């Protein structure tokens, strides 16, 4: 392996066919992201992984690494804008962390912490969104969905099913369930499906598991998302 790209002044080796994200993760460089998971086809929608490639903004999770790329990732400008994009997600949905079972283990929250976000900056939408608690083991709280499509992809690519989809246009977008009633209980989702566990926020939760881990021992109580992610996704890349 002798091809390389430069990220924040550091030479990062890559192989043909790798995205910038893949090369970075393999080399232990964290690029903030929410909709990306190395197990599934990259989606490129959250835009948190935007990096500057030779001066031009590109999504690291979808953009192929190529010789000659000089990339900036951790800069004040990019991180400030990533914080604003995260704030957009917070005002779009209804994210009330203190009453969410995912708190402390939530990637949306952890990315916000990582970026030093302390407020939501923009006016809130306060849209009415539903909760689907029909399934015996899994529930959906649409208030917390950020349309990352990880559950959609996990169901298709890992579970060999097609339980979830995103429907609608623009700000009207919503997560929908593939069942005649539209309810989760009538879909073929099983509690052991990857799709039931992949949600980066508290939108899809396993029932009767909330608050089991005491405060202080949750994933992001003491560890930054960069460390956690690199440990998890770096390993996944090596598979």
């Amino acid at each position: 392996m002798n091809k390389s790209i430069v990220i924040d002044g550091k030479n990062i080796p890559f192989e043909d066919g790798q995205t910038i994200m893949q090369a970075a993760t393999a080399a232990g460089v964290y690029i903030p992201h929410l909709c990306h998971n190395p197990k599934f086809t990259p989606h490129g929608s959250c835009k948190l992984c935007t990096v500057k490639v030779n001066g031009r903004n590109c999504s690291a999770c979808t953009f192929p690494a190529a010789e000659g790329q000089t990339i900036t990732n951790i800069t004040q400008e990019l991180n400030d804008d990533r914080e604003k994009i995260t704030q957009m997600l917070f005002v779009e949905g209804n994210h009330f962390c203190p009453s969410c079972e995912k708190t402390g283990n939530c990637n949306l929250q952890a990315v916000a912490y990582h970026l030093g976000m302390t407020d939501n900056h923009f006016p809130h939408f306060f849209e009415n969104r539903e909760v689907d608690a029909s399934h015996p083991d899994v529930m959906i709280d649409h208030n917390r969905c950020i349309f990352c499509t990880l559950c959609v992809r996990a169901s298709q690519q890992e579970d060999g099913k097609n339980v979830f989809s995103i429907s609608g246009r623009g700000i009207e977008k919503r997560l929908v369930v593939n069942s005649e009633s539209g309810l989760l209980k009538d879909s073929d989702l099983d509690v052991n499906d990857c799709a039931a566990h992949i949600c980066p926020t508290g939108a899809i939760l396993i029932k009767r598991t909330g608050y089991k881990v005491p405060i202080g021992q949750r994933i992001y109580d003491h560890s930054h998302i960069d460390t956690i992610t690199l440990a998890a996704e770096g390993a996944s890349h090596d598979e």
Partner: protein
Amino acid sequence: MTNKKVKVATVSLAGCFGCHMSFLDLDERLVELVEHVEFDRSPLTDIEHCSSDCDIGLIEGGVCNSENVHVLREFRKNCKILVAVGACAINGGLPAMRNHISLEDCLNEAYVSGVGVENPQIPNDVELPLLLDKVHPLHEVVKIDYFLPGCPPSADVFWKFLTDLLAGREPSLSYELVHFD
């Protein structure tokens, strides 16, 4: 730190006083704090209105009624630095979870048709503040200078934030101190 004491005002709007309780968790550090700080309007002092020369206003809770708006404006007018303290002040928090229910339904459930309601009627005394149709975070009503997240922010957060300000430093919270819950 200068000799003149810094004037701090505090209030709880649509909150639960949990942030104030957490503030009191400063315990013995409160003694050190009052050497540099003088409390103005606050539930801790029972002073009813802000002096016109407050330095720091700490506001817990979001804005759910007309009185909250008046109080928040009084703070903005009289405090040099206005701080949103806690989840409710920052995004409406728990009270804002009523935002997906119409105010009409809320009032009817509470005062007219709810289980156990006797003598059903919507309270209409002119002394009572009217509810806004949605609960809003502070930054949607006045300009806010700093945000202290947490439900509640721990005493350490208050300590770090205030001691930074008193020392003339830009307040900065470490990773361990920033949490939304």
